[in-house]
């Protein structure tokens, strides 16, 4: 799925992919843009834009109801891209389309890792609904706040997911033993020697 499109632009993509800490820079960049973009979308969205946003929202809700994390993650990107399209800013659309493509390819982080967490998915859905409602209502200030809050909570969710992975590795090592002691698996004995 990766090497297929855009081999040349992948210089930056490869660089970011092999340095996972850049995910936070990516999310920060997204957050810096998202508030204003959502405010513009609230002010400028045409009926066609709103119909597209509604379709994305419904696809997300359906995937959520079907408990289909992969489908929901894909619909999520389409929803955000639809917001940028509703800003009617061709430069922003071009740049974000590229970034979302990298996101889809898993350059910044493993999205399935986030979406497999039920609590995270529930939170994202509520945030997307709030954002959609504000844009549909033409409420720029609320849309701005909702978008920034959503990106902020994505940062927190990613941080927790990464910590959780690390914690799980520790749990596994503790359960299976370090493999460095004379009688492997002889745990517990160490207390009553």
């Amino acid at each position, binding site marked *: 799925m990766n090497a297929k499109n*855009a081999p*040349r*632009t*992948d*210089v*930056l993509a*490869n*660089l*970011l992919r*092999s*340095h996972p800490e*850049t995910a936070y*820079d*990516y999310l*920060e*960049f997204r957050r*810096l*843009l998202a508030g*204003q*973009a959502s405010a513009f979308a609230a002010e400028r969205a045409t009926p066609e834009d709103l119909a597209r946003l509604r379709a994305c929202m419904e696809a997300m809700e359906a995937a959520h109801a079907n408990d289909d994390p992969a489908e929901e993650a894909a619909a999520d990107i389409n929803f955000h891209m639809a917001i940028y399209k509703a800003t009617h*800013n*061709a*430069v*922003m659309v*071009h*740049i974000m389309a*590229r970034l979302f493509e990298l996101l889809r390819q898993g350059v910044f982080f493993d999205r399935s890792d986030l979406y497999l967490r039920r609590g995270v998915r529930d939170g994202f859905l509520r945030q997307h609904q709030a954002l959609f409602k504000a844009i549909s209502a033409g409420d720029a200030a609320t849309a701005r706040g909702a978008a920034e809050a959503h990106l902020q909570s994505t940062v927190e969710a990613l941080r927790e997911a990464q910590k959780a992975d690390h914690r799980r590795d520790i749990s596994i*090592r503790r359960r*299976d033993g370090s*493999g*460095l002691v004379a009688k492997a698996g002889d745990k517990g004995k160490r207390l009553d020697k």
Partner: protein
Amino acid sequence: MSTSIRPAKLADSIAERMEMLILEGSLRPGERLLPERELAAKFDVSRPTLREALEKLEKKGLLYSGRGGATHVAAMLGDEFTGPLATILQTKPETTADYLEFRSIVEGSASYLAALRGSDVDRELVHSCFLKMEAAHGKDDPSEEADADADFHIAVYEASHNVVMLHIMRSLAEMLRGEVFYNRARLYQRRGVRELLLGQHRAVHDAVMAGDPLAARASAEAHIHFTHEALQEIAAADARLEDSLRRIAGEDGHS
């Protein structure tokens, strides 16, 4: 669980070190590396080891060999990113307004972060870029001033310490220098405009130097808004001039 630990290969360590320099933006796209012999001496390794490291980075697309065997740092975002953007702008000149709208958001945020995070070294660079702008302004050299202007903004992006933003905006800044978005010389040729632009850069500079994020954001946004309006004014003035010229030509035709 694998517990074997091996020392990292020397070539891998060098490749990693150079990759980090590219990621953080210390090694810049287009820069030409020292000759192999000198690089090997810098890293204190043999030439075959150095060559192996360079080959790894070339394979990743981070470096490329130019004429005469020189090695250069590759562009982070290739033609595939900038090409279509240039095409949109050429076919639809009104996209310039979109570019400036995008810039005002990013510029405001970058200046905010620069004021918040910029180290003393970053601040020094922002300061020296501003001094260069001032000097060019005093010399009445619009093209040098426009160049110093672009350098100033890159220094602000560097001080924001967000590598994703830095790489994207560096690519766009190169396009800006290439006059893809609008004709900067025309902007700088207007004496009054140049005075105002310098004052706006001073405001951004002062806020970043003072570590005042909110003032930095506000002055950066105001700067881009002004640029946008000035370009519109220039376009309107050009249109009026063309009208007049056509009228004069028409009158000539009648006489």
